[in-house]
């Protein structure tokens, strides 16, 4: 853990009197390694270390009897504040029906997350309408419809050969005349470098003007998280992120990478395969997890 590692480093520095610039350099390097091993992106980790360097060189640490503890407190506080912030609630205000788009890489957990959010909203007395706009993956529409049956949540039935844009338009108009206040749109997984498919999302956005565009990202994503999140944000200016599969043992450094590169809040985390496995995001818990 970070505590053990910093304690070891500081032990070596004991009896050398005042901590030197080089001492702090070694300590900061140790913190950077912990972040990299937790899958925080290389550049993001570097920037983070720069951000805490000044605080690390402060009297709080250098004159402390327990410098390791002081430093860990600084790192934890800084990491928590970076991960957290405003706007982590869903935007539910606005003219009905409001819609939300779920986007992201293949297999990240979008369809399952749409189901989870439908359950979440239904339990808050909303009347959600799920829209299966993935026409490419085999049985994707079937998958969302089955979740709809499980949850007793109405789900749009695409006609034969209806493309994603038409599905979204028709679903939103139907929701408008059928007392559904929130439309949840499940989209096909796609690569951030697939220009045509990224353009498809942009067109859907411009057509139905969703309240929320949420990037569904896998908590075990590695260094590539900055590329994926950066590109999705550049194309869609998303509103937030949902980090899935947090019930695994991935340290989740991708959370910091994504937040650092997009500035967008992580709103929820997926914590299991069942439809009740959705939790509000806690930045302090995420910070401790990343630091190990």
């Amino acid at each position: 853990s970070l505590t053990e590692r910093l304690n070891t480093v500081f032990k070596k520095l004991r009896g050398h009197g005042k901590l030197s610039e080089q001492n702090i350099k070694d300590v900061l390097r140790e913190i950077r390694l912990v972040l990299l091993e937790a899958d925080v992106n290389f550049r993001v980790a570097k920037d983070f270390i720069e951000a805490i360097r000044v605080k690390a060189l402060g009297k709080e640490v250098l004159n402390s009897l327990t410098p390791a503890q002081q430093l860990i407190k600084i790192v934890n506080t800084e990491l928590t504040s970076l991960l957290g912030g405003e706007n982590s609630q869903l935007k539910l205000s606005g003219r009905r029906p409001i819609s939300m788009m779920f986007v992201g890489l293949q297999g990240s957990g979008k369809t399952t997350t749409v189901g989870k959010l439908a359950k979440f909203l239904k339990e808050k007395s909303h009347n959600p309408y799920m829209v299966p706009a993935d026409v490419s993956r085999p049985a994707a529409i079937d998958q969302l419809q089955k979740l709809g049956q499980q949850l007793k949540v109405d789900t749009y039935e695409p006609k034969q050969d209806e493309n994603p844009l038409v599905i979204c338009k028709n679903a939103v108009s139907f929701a408008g005349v059928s007392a559904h206040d929130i439309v949840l749109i499940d989209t096909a997984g796609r690569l951030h470098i697939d220009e045509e498919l990224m353009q498809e999302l942009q067109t859907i956005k411009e057509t139905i003007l969703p309240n929320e565009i949420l990037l569904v990202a896998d908590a075990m994503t590695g260094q590539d998280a900055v590329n994926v999140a950066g590109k999705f944000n550049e194309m869609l200016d998303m509103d937030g992120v949902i980090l899935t599969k947090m019930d695994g043992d991935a340290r989740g450094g991708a959370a910091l990478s994504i937040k650092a590169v997009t500035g967008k809040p992580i709103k929820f985390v997926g914590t299991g395969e069942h439809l009740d496995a959705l939790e509000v995001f806690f930045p302090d818990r995420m910070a401790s997890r990343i630091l190990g």
Partner: protein
Amino acid sequence: VLGKKNIDDDLLEELEEILITSDIGVQTAFRLIEDMREKVKRKELDDPGLLKKCLQEEIMEILKAEESPLDVTGSVPFVILVVGVNGVGKTTTIAKMANGFKEQGKSVLLAAADTFRAAAIEQLEIWGQRAGCKVIKHQSGSDPSAVVFDALKAAQARGVDVLIVDTAGRLHTKANLMEELKKIQRIMGRELPDAPHEVLLILDATTGQNAISQAKSFKEATNITGIALTKLDGTAKGGVVVGISHELKIPLRYVGIGEGMDDLRVFNAKEFVEALF
């Protein structure tokens, strides 16, 4: 990186960044850079233009040792159990493999042993139709071991060349799900000694260091005999397989490079390393 007159610390640091951002892992990256530093000290390497090539060769040595295409001729039926965490591409990879075997003139049977996830059976059925092979299935929610048992019986009765078993995604940290996998493996071995002949772990190239923990846990539970790395058509490099190869010595079978039935390649160490950086 090129255009420098000698190999200095700046250059090595630049390479360290390239390695780490490929998900090769901090410890592996440091060790490789240290090896390069040693070579420079011993005057075995002084041309910055050759540094990249030298690194690639060292990584290639690690991967070449595990470059081992899957040979399904050793048994009839040859049984492949496909496992991995959620969403990595198990079902799609099975479709690609089935298609490949069919193109080689082999008969293939699929087993829909993911009885948990919504529409998992339907998804495999559609792929089965496209690849031209039958799918053994039960009701959703039934015991996966029962599906596997029936599939094995059917494969033997029909004299099928290859049986590929699709399982539900499962996090390696869930003991009960790993137990379910062990049970599937036991049932297979009881019905057909030596089955499964291949336990193929599917890893997602976008996954970071957790892939190593996945490989270790699955290997412990079910003795993984092969790895397929998917989604290499994205921007992730899949560097995690270097550490996995070095530490766990598991054969690297395939790479997935897209969502279609033809988007599967036999693992090639040279191509992989050249794409790495």
